[in-house]
């Protein structure tokens, strides 16, 4: 081992880039942390020193930022491409630091030393330590180079990587991309030029031999090292303004999420961390139900994030209004950007021209009526169930068969649960409705609130804070009745496919109970895409602007996915999905309650 130099001017571009990116990220970090509401900030700081969450943070950052586990699960090539670059690069930097620590510990304070180690220090591959390190360096460089090769192929043939559509990179994204591609081949070239002095391994060794054969020893090696340093500099200078900002941002997003922080402001704090964490991979474009028939391709979450970063208010409004809020983009997102929540927050920024006035709603007569009735189970049918009376009829029939004493909160229509207003970003107006409904429920003296609409179910569960009252969806309630032996289902001959409604599946995490019920009532088959990746029926009340004709295409595409196994019947657990599908489906569509009602025998 022999130290050749301590400094060379070619490290300057690298130092400039490094200093810029570090300062920028530090500024961004402080900005986001200080934008959090005080309570959230304290919670976040506390979670950082709590051993359990701290360990989870480290684990999640390692698995998601470096190894990209979720991408591996989606597609192996895609996973390899990302983890090779992320993990490989991380290892190169780590090994660089180890080399400095081992050979020249005195230089540890020099930022550029581990990066350009082979220029400054002549190592030898004749010692075990040297050979092992040189081999590892070449090994990880090879892994990255294969990853870069795959990245180039992906730009032309994204289908090989399981992606039908990818994002169109913006200009600066391209600059970042090409400089990233240039960094590693240039590193290989640079290290090859000095391998006969500083040592090399299976990659740099033969490259060096070739280099000497062609140019001899007389030629200066600085230009290649300059090029390598400049490529690094360009990448780091543009990083904050490109999608590569996700690299540092995700390392902040993961601890924030693990601390349980939620979006409180549409453009500040957690929302900002999410927007910057978007890697622009475009997995959400294929996932978005609106992209059926190659439409609305630029309205997926990846473009929302891009427009928020650019501050394009017109497009932000357009994208956030159009969305069905089905949440599939969040389910497939590699970094966990919450598309629906982010959009609801953007909607809340805008002025609501309609000044609703719900004070005239008379709840007294309701309370009186309910107080007079027995039964500890209160059934709230909700707007959508009233539109599909068969569900109400079947459910009340099943409940009667099981001997459940219940009362109906809204026999002839009631007050909206507030979820549509909440989805429209009208928090205050939704609260007014919640307060009205809450009064009635608390006065009814029930201990269980039963719902047949997942849209209602979600807001009752999340926002009503009904202490002492169990909020339950009918799929779960019926399943319990069956498990308790109060309902007896006879198995039918028909094959049934279950459609996971967005609000029930992705929204509330209920996947098993309806399937358990259906497998008892018939032959359960699965859709091509199901559970957390089920496709929205297109009827969602989440979209504020999507018209009838556009929804038709979405419904048809969704039906195609559902009937992949040619089932005799489509069963869902949401009145809205049922009414939307029945419009276009040749296969009969019904609610879970109807199926169970038909298959139950009275004891």
């Amino acid at each position: 081992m022999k130290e050749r130099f301590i400094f060379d001017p070619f490290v300057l571009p690298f130092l400039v880039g490094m200093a810029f990116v570090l300062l920028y990220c530090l500024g961004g970090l402080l900005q986001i942390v200080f934008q959090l509401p005080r309570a959230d900030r304290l919670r976040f700081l506390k979670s950082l020193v709590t051993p359990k969450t701290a360990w989870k943070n480290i684990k999640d950052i390692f698995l998601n930022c470096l190894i990209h586990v979720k991408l591996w699960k989606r597609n192996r090539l895609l996973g390899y491409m990302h983890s090779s670059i992320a993990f490989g690069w991380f290892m190169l930097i780590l090994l660089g630091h180890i080399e400095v620590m081992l050979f020249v510990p005195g230089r540890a304070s020099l930022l550029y030393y581990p990066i350009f180690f082979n220029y400054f220090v002549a190592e030898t591959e004749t010692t075990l330590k040297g050979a092992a390190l040189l081999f590892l360096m070449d090994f990880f460089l090879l892994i990255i180079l294969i990853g870069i090769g795959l990245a180039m192929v992906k730009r032309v043939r994204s289908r090989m990587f399981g992606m039908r559509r990818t994002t169109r990179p913006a200009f600066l994204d391209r600059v970042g991309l090409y400089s990233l591609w240039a960094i590693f081949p240039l590193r290989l070239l640079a290290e090859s030029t000095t391998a006969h002095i500083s040592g090399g391994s299976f990659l740099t060794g033969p490259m060096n031999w070739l280099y000497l054969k062609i140019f001899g020893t007389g030629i200066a090696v600085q230009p290649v090292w300059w090029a390598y340093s400049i490529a690094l500099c360009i990448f780091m200078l543009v990083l904050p303004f490109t999608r590569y900002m996700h690299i540092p941002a995700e390392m902040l997003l993961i601890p924030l999420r693990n601390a349980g922080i939620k979006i409180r402001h549409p453009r500040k704090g957690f929302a900002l961390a999410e927007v910057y964490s978007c890697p622009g991979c475009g997995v959400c474009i294929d996932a978005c139900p609106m992209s059926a028939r190659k439409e609305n391709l630029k309205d997926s979450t990846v473009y929302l994030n891009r427009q928020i970063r650019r501050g394009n208010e017109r497009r932000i409004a357009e994208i956030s209004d159009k969305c069905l809020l089905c949440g599939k983009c969040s389910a497939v997102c590699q970094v966990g950007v919450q598309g629906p929540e982010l959009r609801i927050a953007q909607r809340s920024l805008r002025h609501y021209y309609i000044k609703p006035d719900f004070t005239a709603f008379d709840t007294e007569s309701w309370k009186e009526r309910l107080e007079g009735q027995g039964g500890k189970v209160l059934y709230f049918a909700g707007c959508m169930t009233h539109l599909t009376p068969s569900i109400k009829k079947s459910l009340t029939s099943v409940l009667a068969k099981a001997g459940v004493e219940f009362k109906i909160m809204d026999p002839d229509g009631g007050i909206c649960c507030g979820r549509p207003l909440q989805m429209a970003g009208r928090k205050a107006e939704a609260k007014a409705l919640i307060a009205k409904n809450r009064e009635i429920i608390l006065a009814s003296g029930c201990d269980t609130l039963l719902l047949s609409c997942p849209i209602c179910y979600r807001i009752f569960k999340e926002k009503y804070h009904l202490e002492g009252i169990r909020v339950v969806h009918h799929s779960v309630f019926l399943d319990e009745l069956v498990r308790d032996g109060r309902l007896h289902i006879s198995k039918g001959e028909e094959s049934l496919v279950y459609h996971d409604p967005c609000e029930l599946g992705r929204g509330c995490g209920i996947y098993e109970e309806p399937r358990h019920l259906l497998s008892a009532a018939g032959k359960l088959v699965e859709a091509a895409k199901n559970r957390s990746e089920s496709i929205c029926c297109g009827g969602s009340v989440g979209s504020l602007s999507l018209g009838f004709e556009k929804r038709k295409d979405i419904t048809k595409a969704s039906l195609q996915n559902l009937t992949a196994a040619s089932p005799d019947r489509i069963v869902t657990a949401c009145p809205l999905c049922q009414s939307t599908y029945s419009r276009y489906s040749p296969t009969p569509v019904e609610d879970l309650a109807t199926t169970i009602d038909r298959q139950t025998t009275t004891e």
Partner: protein
Amino acid sequence: MDFGFSLSQSSTVNLDKTDLSLFHRVHEIEPDVAICMACGSCSATCTSSEFTGMSLRSVILDIQRGRQEEARKMLSGCMLCGKCSMVCPRGINTRRLILTLGRVFDGEDRNTRRDIRKEVRK
């Protein structure tokens, strides 16, 4: 004398004299407002009608006849539940229409880039 019933006030609308500029403005943004055939499905299913007498059919008829005040007042009962858009036989995007109506009634654009910026800074 109380007969137990009364006569409605005459509500003659003279289309030659009423100002229909508001309707035309709505029609520009939401052409669908013209294909409404006043079947009343929206009003029949309206969740809010029981409490506030809300009826989208009346709102549309009112603005077609220049009765803006009545329309504006009625709109404040909307809970935005979206049931009306599911039953409309003409496929009118009623929820978007309601939001557009509110905006046109207000008269000025309160969601300009500057307004949003102000809102963000709050």
